[in-house]
């Protein structure tokens, strides 16, 4: 590996690196071993702690909870793309007032924590007489509004990354603004931003887990329910392990898609013109406000 920090190691450095590698592995194995030891000592691997997972009804419930997580995710993903698209179009308007207005809305929506948005929906709206709000609608709305605001910035950056000459050329041959957007800028921007967009979908999936706090009966909620049933000696750690691995597998699957798209994109000659900035490519806006 050639970076600024190291060049090819000599014999001394090879020995030192080997030593450091052993230290790192020993430390990690030590931490993992200690956790496994504590789990074993406190009887988390015992048969009665896991018995609850031998009932098919429990697995049916887990399946149903996974479906509830996925349905909140699916709707959230679709709506966040729509909202993101709308906000981005408003932001790119030629009218400075409309543009500023949308910029302000986008910034504010990104600054409010998703959980607070959920609570505003679920606990706040009934106060003003909107009693139709269920935990599901609250989760979907909050997640899609927040991710929509993040995606708006992603779309905008993508459009900005298309070389100016392309839109100038399109205007020069008589395209209108809509046509320039639709036929020239957006196809390239979306292609370039696809990995970041899919990475944001991972965030949508992760954020649906916040529904746990406002009693949406998704995977974690079920995990808590199963984990605190005293008749099975409260198997909270087995429940966390089961439910957690389902969440992580789903997220890894989506992240794998993002990675695949990124690799495919890099080898695609059609995408060479649009180079999003370095930190966009690393997925930073997908995880934080920029």
């Amino acid at each position, binding site marked *: 590996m050639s*970076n*600024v*920090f*190291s060049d090819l*190691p000599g014999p001394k*450095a090879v020995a030192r*690196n080997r030593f*450091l*590698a*052993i230290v*790192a*592995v020993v430390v*990690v194995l030590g931490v993992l071993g200690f956790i496994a030891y*504590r*789990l074993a000592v*406190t009887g*988390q691997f015992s048969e009665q702690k896991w018995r609850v997972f031998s009932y098919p009804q429990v697995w049916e419930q887990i399946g149903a909870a996974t479906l509830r997580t996925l349905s909140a995710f699916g709707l959230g993903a679709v709506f966040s793309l729509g909202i993101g698209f709308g906000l981005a179009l408003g932001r790119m308007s030629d009218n400075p007032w409309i543009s500023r207005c949308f910029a302000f809305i986008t*910034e504010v929506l*990104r*600054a*409010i*924590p*998703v*959980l*607070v948005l959920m*609570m*505003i929906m679920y*606990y*706040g*709206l009934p*106060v003003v007489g909107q009693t139709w709000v269920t935990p599901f609608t609250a989760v979907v709305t909050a997640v899609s509004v927040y991710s929509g605001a993040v995606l708006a910035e992603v779309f905008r950056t993508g459009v900005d990354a298309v070389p100016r000459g392309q839109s100038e050329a399109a205007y020069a041959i008589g395209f209108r603004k809509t046509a320039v957007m639709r036929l020239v800028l957006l196809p390239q921007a979306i292609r370039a931003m696809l990995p970041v967009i899919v990475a944001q979908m*991972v965030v949508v*999936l*992760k*954020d649906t*887990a*916040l529904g*746990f*706090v406002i009693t949406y009966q998704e995977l*974690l909620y079920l995990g808590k329910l199963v*984990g605190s049933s005293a008749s099975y000696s*409260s198997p*909270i*750690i087995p429940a*966390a392990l089961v*439910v*957690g691995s389902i*969440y992580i597998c789903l*997220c*890894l699957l989506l*992240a794998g898609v993002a990675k695949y798209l990124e690799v495919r994109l890099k080898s695609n000659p059609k995408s060479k013109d649009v180079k999003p900035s*370095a*930190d966009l490519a*690393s*997925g*930073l806006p997908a*995880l*934080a*406000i*920029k």
Partner: protein
Amino acid sequence: MNIIFDNLDLWGLALWNTLVLFIGGAVIAVFLGTVLGVMRVSSVPAARAIGTAYVNLVRNTPLTLVFFIFVFGYPSLGLPRLDYTALAITAIGLYAATYVTEVLRSGFNTIPVGQAEAARALGMTFGQVMGHVVLPQAFRSVVPPLISALIAILKMTTIAAGFSVLELGAVRANLSERGENALGVLLWVALVFVLLVAIMSLAQRSLEKKWKIIR
């Protein structure tokens, strides 16, 4: 306004706890994130693998699940008791460390290899290359995105509301007991976050402008 002034005690406590979670989480995140970031760019393959595995695993875990494991799972391990705030700080710190790691890694990578090579060719030692060429630039390109990570940590603190910590996310539940209007309370909470985030992103923007390196 009455929602605030009639319950100043609760708001003060909540804001204080949010700041405690934020600062505690940020300290752990920056420390652990730096260790992992160095591991990810180091020339020891095992260290790189460990860093990558940690980042990939944690970034694909919902933070709520991390909280769940720490707050509900940890007490049943029979280890020394920790209060909810300490557990929440640990959860936030371990989770946000991956953000810091990625910020550092992309910051290191913005420095063209040619610069270090040129410095080497001039006969600078490793310490001089680092001290005069690499780190000053890496620091500048890292601080603005680091503030983004801090903003994310600030927003993460609300999740502790679901896990028995009285912070800004939890004032709604406490004020509802005093008969306050839930929507009003939540809108104030949202406003506080918008203001805090606005301050941080203003700082970020001015630093970014001041330190921009034209290449």
